[in-house]
């Protein structure tokens, strides 16, 4: 095997740079570069050109909104049959959310009916009709917002309202929830039938509506009414799991504030876990 010339070496520098030569050719080129200073130096400089190109071309990152849009489309479910005649019922039901209170506050109430039970995590039987109604109601949920606001601004609104109404600071930590394309649609003070104020939050998670309520007073009759509305829908008794389009509701308690959520999105647990509540 004769020694490789400079011209021959230069023929192979591109695949050599890419480590794509066979063992024999790699050895020949390596040997030439070992003994030939000018070729070795040229090869090093050519490599630096490649490195600079790579560094420049790798600067691009996928914009966050493009990624969120892709995730949203991937998470989007199959369309379900609409039942427009149930829409008013859906809106009414969507306003009725589970609220409960800290144990001490409940005991202070005179009415037995208003006395709250101990807070527990509850699941309502999934209801396919309610799921489709909530999904249909989603554009109207968005229509409730009088102005466009970003997620952080709405969280700030929630915090202000909760300090005023509940004596608590509430925030939502979205780290780790980016893939769900969470949108904060609206936050407002609501009053239930008994005249008690609570906070209602409307989110979209992968384009599914998520309804949350925050309160520190118990309203058992509201919970019962919500469940009754669900059970009156034609598709009652549809079996779980939530993934087939049923509604899930859950209730948690944190620092004396009760949070209840209702949605047909399967990530309610993660959303509730992201809510932070501190007494002020």
């Amino acid at each position, binding site marked *: 095997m004769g020694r490789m010339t400079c011209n021959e070496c230069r023929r192979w520098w*591109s*695949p050599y740079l*890419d480590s*794509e030569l066979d063992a024999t050719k790699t050895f020949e080129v390596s040997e030439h570069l070992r003994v030939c200073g000018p070729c070795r130096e*040229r090869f090093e*400089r*050519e490599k*630096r*050109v*490649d490195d*600079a*190109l*790579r560094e*420049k*071309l*790798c*600067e*691009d*990152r*996928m*914009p966050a909104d*493009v*990624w969120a*849009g*892709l*995730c949203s*489309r*991937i*998470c989007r479910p*199959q369309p379900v049959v609409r039942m427009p005649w149930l829409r008013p019922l859906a809106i009414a039901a969507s306003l009725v959310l589970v609220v409960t209170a800290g144990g001490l506050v409940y005991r202070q109430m005179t009415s037995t009916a208003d006395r709250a039970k101990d807070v527990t995590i509850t699941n309502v039987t999934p209801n396919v009709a309610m799921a489709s109604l909530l999904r249909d109601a989603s554009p109207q949920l968005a229509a409730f917002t009088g102005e466009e606001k970003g997620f952080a601004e709405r969280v700030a609104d929630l915090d202000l309202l909760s300090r005023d109404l509940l004596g608590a600071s509430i925030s939502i930590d979205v780290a780790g929830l980016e*893939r769900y394309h969470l949108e904060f649609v609206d936050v407002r003070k609501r009053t239930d039938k008994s005249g008690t104020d609570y906070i209602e939050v409307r989110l979209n998670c992968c384009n599914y509506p998520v309804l949350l309520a925050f309160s520190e007073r118990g309203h058992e009759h509201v919970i019962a009414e919500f469940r009754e509305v669900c059970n009156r829908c034609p598709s009652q008794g549809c079996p779980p799991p939530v*993934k087939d389009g049923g509604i899930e509701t859950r209730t948690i308690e944190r620092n004396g504030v009760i949070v209840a959520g209702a949605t047909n999105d*399967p990530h309610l647990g993660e959303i509730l876990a992201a809510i932070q509540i501190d007494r002020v």
Partner: protein
Amino acid sequence: MSSYSDADSFIRLLEPCRDALYRFAARSLWRKSHVNDVLQEAVMTAWSQFDRFERGTNFRAWMFTILLNTVYRVNRKIHRSREVALDSDVFDPEHLIEKETAWLSVLEDPDRVMQSLDDRLVAALDRLSTTERACFLLRLLEDFSYKEIAEQLDLPMGTVMSHVYRARMKLRERLADLAIEEGLVRSTSEDSQE
């Protein structure tokens, strides 16, 4: 129909290569306005075929194959008359010598020249055909082997090697031109006039 757990799995596999897919689309499409649409089409095509993807195999390579097909299809619709001239093999010795001399000047201080050219480095890719770009970018940026690139593009390995080599040569020619334009190096014609 894929379930939510499939959507989660798909997104978890897609997330680590999202930036690579984006920059490949951005660098290989003739029109930058097509990037988001092409990405969306490629990702949704992959999602629709996710049940056919064999778990445990190379998701990144699979995803890039789908993206490549989409890029090719979109680029094919755009007529690139410039490409004919650039791919011609007109042999002009003086031209080649001038280019080689200019390039040697660049190589005297490649870091300085490359840094000065900055965003114009990216413009140098315009000289490459779709296939040359694909081969070069997959090799340089995404570290695919010639064999993997050959499988993705359905080409012989030797052809991939040639494309990568030609891409490097064309880029260097273009970079030498840019360096002369920017006054970073002198052309041989300037030298001979002195």
